[in-house]
C-alpha cells in the first residue's frame, strides 16, 4: 500500500481535551435539573374528550392502530405503548380536540390502555 506523506501533528486534540476538563459538562444534570422539552416536541397525545364527536377518523388513520373509539359508549381509548407519536390523529381530527404535547409517557411493566369517557350531558346532546 503506497503511503502518502502527510503533515502529522502530535496531540492536536489536547487543547480541546483541556478545555473540556475545565468547563461545565455538556450534559444536563438530570434529575437535579429538569429535562427541557421544546414546544414542538411530540411527546404524548392528549384529548379534550368533551369536544370529541366520536367520528373515528383518528382510529382509522392511526398507523399502529393504538386508538379505539366507541361511539355508543362514548369512549376514546389509547394504548400509549403502541402509540408511535406520529401525530397523524391530530392532523385528521375534524374538531381539533386531539393534541400532541411535550413530555414522555411513563414507563410501565404492562401495556395499559387509557380510556376517556364523555360526560353524560355531552352524550345526550
Amino acid at each position, binding site marked *: *500500500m*503506497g*503511503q*502518502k506523506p*502527510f*503533515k*502529522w*501533528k*502530535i496531540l*492536536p*486534540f489536547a*487543547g*480541546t*481535551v483541556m478545555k*473540556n476538563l475545565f468547563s461545565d459538562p*455538556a450534559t444536563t444534570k438530570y434529575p437535579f435539573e429538569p429535562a427541557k422539552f*421544546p*414546544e*414542538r*416536541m*411530540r411527546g404524548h397525545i392528549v384529548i379534550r374528550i368533551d369536544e370529541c364527536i366520536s367520528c373515528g377518523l383518528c382510529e382509522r*388513520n392511526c*398507523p399502529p392502530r393504538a386508538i379505539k373509539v366507541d361511539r355508543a359508549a362514548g369512549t376514546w381509548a389509547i394504548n400509549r405503548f403502541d402509540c*408511535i*407519536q*406520529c*401525530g*397523524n390523529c391530530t*392532523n385528521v381530527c375534524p374538531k381539533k380536540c386531539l393534541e*400532541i404535547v411535550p413530555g414522555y409517557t411513563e414507563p410501565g411493566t404492562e401495556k395499559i390502555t387509557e380510556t376517556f369517557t364523555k360526560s353524560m350531558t355531552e352524550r345526550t346532546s
Partner: protein
Amino acid sequence: MVKEFSTIPFGPQHPVLPEPVHLDLILDDETVVGAVPNIGFIHRGLEKLVETKDFKEYVYVAERVCGICSFGHGMGYCECLENIMNIEVPRRGNYLRTIWMEMSRVHSHLLWLGLLADALGFESLFMESWKLREQILDMFDATTGGRVIFSVNCVGGVLKDMDQSMLNNILNTVNDMEKEIRPVTETFLNDYTVGTRLHGLGVLTADEAKVMGAVGPMLRASGVSYDARKTGYAAYGELDLEPVIDTDGDSFARCRVRINELFQSFDLIRQAIGKIPEGDISVPVKGNPEGEHFMRIEQPRGEAIYYVKANGTKYIDRFRLRTPTTSNIPPMVELIKGCQLADVALLILTIDPCISCTER
C-alpha cells in the same frame, strides 16, 4: 504442502458494529483471504406493510426503516407518490425538505466520525463528535418535534413550517458548529495516530468502485464524481452543489470526503435558508395514485433507490427500497481481502454500514 486456512466468525455481536452483520473471515495466519457476509438478523418486512396501510399512512412506516436516514426515506417515498400523482410541492416545502435533509447528513456524518474514533479507541474524540451532533438533534427536536423520527413529511409537502426565528436559530447553530467542529476535523485529518490507522488502508480504485457498484462517499472517495443530489429533487436544483471527491480511495479518503461533506452541508443549509421563499408548505392530495415511479435520493450513506407501483386504490402494490449499504457490501468484501484481521472492523466501518436499512 496444502495450506490450511482458519475461519473466524465476525459478528453479528461485535463491539465495533452498531448493527448486526455476520462475516465468516477466512484467514491465512493474520491475513484475511476471504470474507463471506451474511445478513438477515433484523428483517422486519416493512416493504410488505405497504400493501396493508393507506398510502398516506405509510409515510410514517417508511421513515422508520432507519433511524439515521429517516428523513430521506420518508421524503423518497413521498416524492415517488408526488410524481405518480403529478403533485407539485410548493417551493417552500421543497426548501424545508432540503434543510432537514442536509441536517440529517450532518448528524449522520458526525455519528460516523464518532464511531470511527470509537473504533480507533480515541474515546475523547468520539465523545466530542457526538457532543456536536447533539446540537443538530436539538434543532431537529425544536423544528420537527422528534430527535430521530421526524414525521414531518407528507404526500404533497411537509407538515410543519419553520418561522424566521427558527431559521435564524438554525443558521446560528450551523455557523457556531462550523467553528466548533474544526478541532475535531483537524484531529481526524492531521493526527498521527488516526493517520497511521487510516492511510493506505482498503484502497478502492475508481474502476473497482464502478464495477462493484459502490455508492455515496465510498464512490466519491475513489475519485468518481457522482452525487444523486445533482438530479435536482427537492430544492437541490436551485442550489450550488458540486460533489465532494477524493482520489486516494483509501479509508483516509473516505473519512476526508465525509468531513468535507459536513462543510458542504453547512453551506447548503445556509444557501437554502438564504433563498427560502414565502408561501404554502404543502398542497392537498385528492384521489388515489395509479402508476409507477422510480427515483434516486442521495442519503448520507450514499444513493438510495425508491420504487413505488400504485394500482389506483389507497393501497400500494409495491414499494421497493434499495439502500446504500446494500450496494456497498460487495466492495466492502473486496476491501477486506488482503487486510490484517485487526483492520477488518475499521474497514467495515468505513463503508458506514446501516444494516437496519439494508434488511428493512
